[in-house]
């Protein structure tokens, strides 16, 4: 049983995001980068499955610039067995990422693919779903609990009305939500061991995937500043304000 986990290098969640002066994107120069927190949860789940004796190998894949090797090494220090970097432009669109991952999946033939539900940089929340569709595999998104059976995996998902549990045939795609687990910190000896674990580098060309952008970013800007709230004296006043000031009813 092999598990593939996709991890993305993103601006660290503690960093206050700033828009570039030319409004083409967000500032990433001299900014701390780290593993997307949802992907840490994905990796933690894979490592726990392996530690429970239900998987033999955890492969950590990242798509991004050469520095994404550091993100993969972090993943190997957390318990991944080997890494694959697809060296590419960091701003790929979700569909391209899904196609690249599909090509990696075809090379690696994992039984389970675990991804974060979204990356905290662009919050697209699309790659896992697109990948499931491209592969023709069942998908369990927003997982808050994963239980592995012999040929199927039970995934409890967070949905609008609460939770639902699905049984998926394997191979399958799972995307993780925050409540699934609490990821571990890498132990220092494992940081050393991670250096010796294999890490292969591929290019989109090797995988036969065209990475040209199909969407055009017109402009990136900060959301408008929130205005202060106000107390209303009565329901009538509230309705009046909603109707005439906010114009929402």
């Amino acid at each position, binding site marked *: 049983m092999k598990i593939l986990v996709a991890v993305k290098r993103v601006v660290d969640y*503690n960093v206050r995001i700033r828009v570039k002066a030319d409004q083409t994107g967000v500032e990433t120069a001299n900014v701390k980068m780290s593993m997307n927190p949802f992907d840490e949860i994905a990796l933690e789940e894979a490592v726990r499955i392996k530690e429970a004796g239900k998987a033999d190998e955890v492969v950590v894949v990242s798509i991004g610039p050469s520095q994404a090797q550091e993100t993969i090494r972090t993943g190997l*220090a957390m318990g991944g067995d080997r890494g694959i970097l697809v060296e590419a432009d960091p701003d790929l669109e979700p569909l391209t990422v899904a196609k690249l991952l599909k090509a990696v999946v075809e090379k690696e033939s994992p039984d389970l693919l675990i991804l974060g539900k979204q990356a905290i940089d662009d919050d697209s929340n699309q790659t896992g779903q697109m990948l499931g569709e491209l592969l023709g595999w069942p998908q369990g998104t927003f997982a808050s609990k994963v239980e592995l059976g012999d040929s199927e995996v039970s995934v409890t998902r967070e949905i609008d009305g609460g939770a639902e549990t699905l049984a998926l045939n394997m191979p399958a795609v799972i995307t993780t939500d925050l409540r699934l687990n609490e990821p571990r*910190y*890498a*132990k*220092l*000896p494992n*940081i*050393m061991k991670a*250096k010796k674990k294999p890490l292969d580098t591929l290019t989109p060309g090797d995988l036969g995937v065209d990475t040209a952008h199909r969407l055009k970013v017109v402009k990136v800007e900060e959301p408008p500043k929130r205005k202060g709230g106000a107390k209303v004296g009565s329901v009538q006043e509230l309705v009046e304000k909603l109707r005439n000031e906010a114009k929402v009813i």
Partner: protein
Amino acid sequence: MTDSLLNDRDLKFQLYEVLDIEALLERPRYAEHDRAVFDSVLDTAHDLAKHYFAPHNQKGDAEEPVFEDGRVRLIPETKTAWDAFADAGFLAAHHDAEDGGMQLPEVVLRACMAYFNAANVSTTAYPFLTIGAANLVKSFAAPELRERFLPPMMDGRFSGTMALTEPGQGSALGDIRTTAKPAEDGSYRLFGQKMFISGGDHELTENIVHMVLARIEGAPAGAKGISLFLVPKVLVNSDGELGARNDVALAGLLHKMGYRNTTSTVLSFGEGDGAVGYLVGKPHHGLAYMFQMMNEARIGVGLGAATLAYQSYVHALSYARERPQGRLPSSKDPLSKQVRIIQHADVRRLLLMQKAYAEGSLSLCLYATSLAEDARTAPDPEQARQAGELLDLLTPMVKSYPSRYGVIASDLAIQVLGGAGYTREYLLEQFYRDNRLNPIHEGTEGIQAIDLLGRKLGRAVAKATHCS
């Protein structure tokens, strides 16, 4: 309120650009490392400090350790933090690979400790003291003793202390009165009382290893009659299993101005048949051995003071950037918008003073650690010797400067916040109280002055005269 401990960029500037620690990678001891490993270790320290140490800093101050029914009760977060620290491997990190360590350079470990100190200096004291005590065991204990006590001090099952001071004497160690009587099995029985022993009792670990200075019966008077003993709280059989409780009792806790989550204890050795102690190294050489731990601890105290100063500065800076108050002298319109206080000249002065004290102190302490590193691992023996001598000369200043000016930085930080800084709603008053310890412990400022002027400079001058 800010959640920033130390600025990663500032710390990495010190390590990679000022001290060029990447040059260490050429030394055989560090051949297995690279910058990515150092960065990952530093990131891990930052994450653990933030997640497990910082959140209970105020709580540990407000709910100080309690002594009841012969036991010490600490807030439970302290144990979680200790376990996270040990579990990640920080207690063992700088040790040799053959002993189970990862041969992390000392200067990287110190930089990691800066994150923990910044997050919670009093909880960090437990691992800090344990690392120092373990280094003593490693350097001077006989092989059998080392095998029995070092591994559990590296994996976090045992913690450690340094037990020097007594109710009657601390600064004047030559006068200590705790005595050690030889026993038939080759060990000793200790009798006496020690005071201000940090981490002297708690239940974070299943055992506590006290490194105790005592006088063997009939030893010469003064500093030349002092020996070093390893005295465990719980006896350890030769197979490593825990045995009976040793004759070491907690007589009481001291109630401090700051550093409150670190227990400060009065310990009684030998209220009954005598506390079992094992001689470390040769008789009557204890003070010289203990100086290894003390010198390390002195750099550590400097670093603790520097990081508290830095924390005070970071908090004051963040407040000054957000707090609107008053207008600039050039503004004559009373209805114009108030400016952030960082725009006022006097507030800027206060902040810049803090920045200078904090960053200068941090830099000095890391530099001292790099000298310790060179003294130990520089390939050129002459370079190693010079680094050792320079460190020896600088140690009293590395301890004193950050301690003295760190408190001043914490004081100025309170001033930036004004009335708010004087309240317990902000951490500033705690930083000030915590930092006030640093000019006192591990040799007061006066003791450091005696060391510098009476010993170190005298020696250096004699040497220079001799050479010329």
